[in-house]
């Protein structure tokens, strides 16, 4: 029987969590990875959707990391439970709608539950003191340990020597002197360490691990909540926020307009849920209408869609409008001139 201590490592797919797991593996600990899918993760989606990206080699970074380290990876769907974190973060948001501190607490809590169910001994993360403005500060790191219920069983190998000793260190499962004392925003020590370990080609996410740190994405989510008069979402909603251009010509409806073939195909899959518009006299995008729209609104929508078709300078463009039940009709409309599409419509 394997009597080694077992650690569950939060694996985001980035370099820090990879190095943290590596340091613990080096101490003879059995490590398995855990990765949470919230629906906002910057994984292959948009690559899968946009035609121009389809032929690029794709990979799931967390799987890549696990394979490089030679550890198992468990990917957990937390879409439903995560909603409460995004909608009601106790500690508020970062620069955009990113609830990083609540999110970290949530993920470590889920990892703790997994650890208990699977007979593991402690949890490791790639957190570094001062790396991120909200969740990785000296004063917020204890918050994560406390609110997740992980307490002394949460070890951050990259900053461990700057933090009070955790249980795995006190009990001698892990040798504290072989852990690191990294802090601050610089990435240099991590890159040097990666070099030492011969790790290349790792992911370097800009800003954060999820779409919620993205200003444009957050604006679309805020718009969705405002238009619906309530703060909630379904997975389809947040996926659609990643696709197409979003225009809100009237408070009660918006248009999601495909920017290229891959996006049009993706939007196609939602035709049973939304009214769809597509130009038929000229090549053009597929658009979905989200909201309540009367006949005048549909006409306006058709004119906007015509504007994004190859018939934009034609006197009239034929637009097919299909309701979710499949009923369809053709409208012949003059494309809306660019000058009549105010900047404020773009979400």
């Amino acid at each position, binding site marked *: 029987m394997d009597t080694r201590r077992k650690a569950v490592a939060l694996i985001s797919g980035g370099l820090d969590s990879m190095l943290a797991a590596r340091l613990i593996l080096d101490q003879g600990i059995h490590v398995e990875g855990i990765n949470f899918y919230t629906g906002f993760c910057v994984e292959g989606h948009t690559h899968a959707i946009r035609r121009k990206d389809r032929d690029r080699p*794709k990979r799931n970074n967390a799987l890549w990391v696990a394979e490089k380290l030679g550890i198992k990876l468990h990917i957990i769907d937390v879409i439903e439970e995560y909603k409460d974190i995004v909608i009601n973060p106790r500690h508020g948001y970062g620069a955009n709608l990113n609830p990083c501190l609540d999110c970290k607490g949530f993920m470590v809590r889920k990892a703790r539950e997994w650890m208990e169910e699977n007979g593991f001994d402690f949890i490791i993360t790639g957190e570094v003191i001062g790396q991120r403005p909200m969740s990785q500060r000296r004063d917020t790191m204890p918050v994560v340990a406390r609110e997740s219920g992980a307490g002394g069983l949460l070890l951050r190998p990259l900053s461990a020597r700057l933090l009070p000793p955790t249980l795995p260190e006190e009990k001698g499962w892990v040798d504290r002197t072989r852990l690191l004392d990294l802090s601050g925003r610089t990435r240099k020590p991590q890159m040097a360490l990666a070099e030492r370990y011969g790790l290349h080609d790792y992911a370097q996410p800009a800003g954060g691990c999820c779409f919620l740190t993205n200003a444009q994405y957050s604006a679309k989510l805020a718009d969705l909540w405002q238009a619906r008069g309530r703060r909630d979402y379904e997975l389809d909603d947040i996926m659609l926020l990643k696709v197409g251009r979003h225009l809100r010509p009237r408070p009660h409806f918006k248009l999601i307009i495909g920017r290229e073939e891959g996006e049009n195909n993706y939007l196609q899959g939602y035709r049973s849920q939304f009214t769809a518009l597509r130009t038929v006299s000229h090549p053009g995008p597929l658009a979905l209408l989200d909201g309540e729209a009367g006949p005048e609104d549909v006409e306006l929508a058709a004119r906007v869609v015509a504007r994004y078709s190859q018939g934009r300078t034609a006197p009239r463009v034929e637009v097919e409008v299909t309701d979710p039940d499949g009923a369809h009709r053709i409208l012949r409309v003059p494309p809306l001139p660019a000058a009549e599409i105010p900047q404020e419509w773009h979400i």
Partner: protein
Amino acid sequence: MGTRHTLDARRQLCPLPVIRTQNKIRSLEKGDILEVVCTDPGALHDIPAWCRINGHKVVSTTTRGDEILITLEVGGE
């Protein structure tokens, strides 16, 4: 020879097909065969990667129009 099972992961974007495959395999026995049908080409990369690290075997992958069929054999602990 194990029993055959299928999993419909069409229209799901990665990593959902991987998650569904992982959860389905939990209820299967070593040697069982699982056929996953999906439409996200990312699954062609991710499902085999997930199988490699978790000890399952990819028997074949075929593409039929927009659909991808990945056949796996469940490995043991």
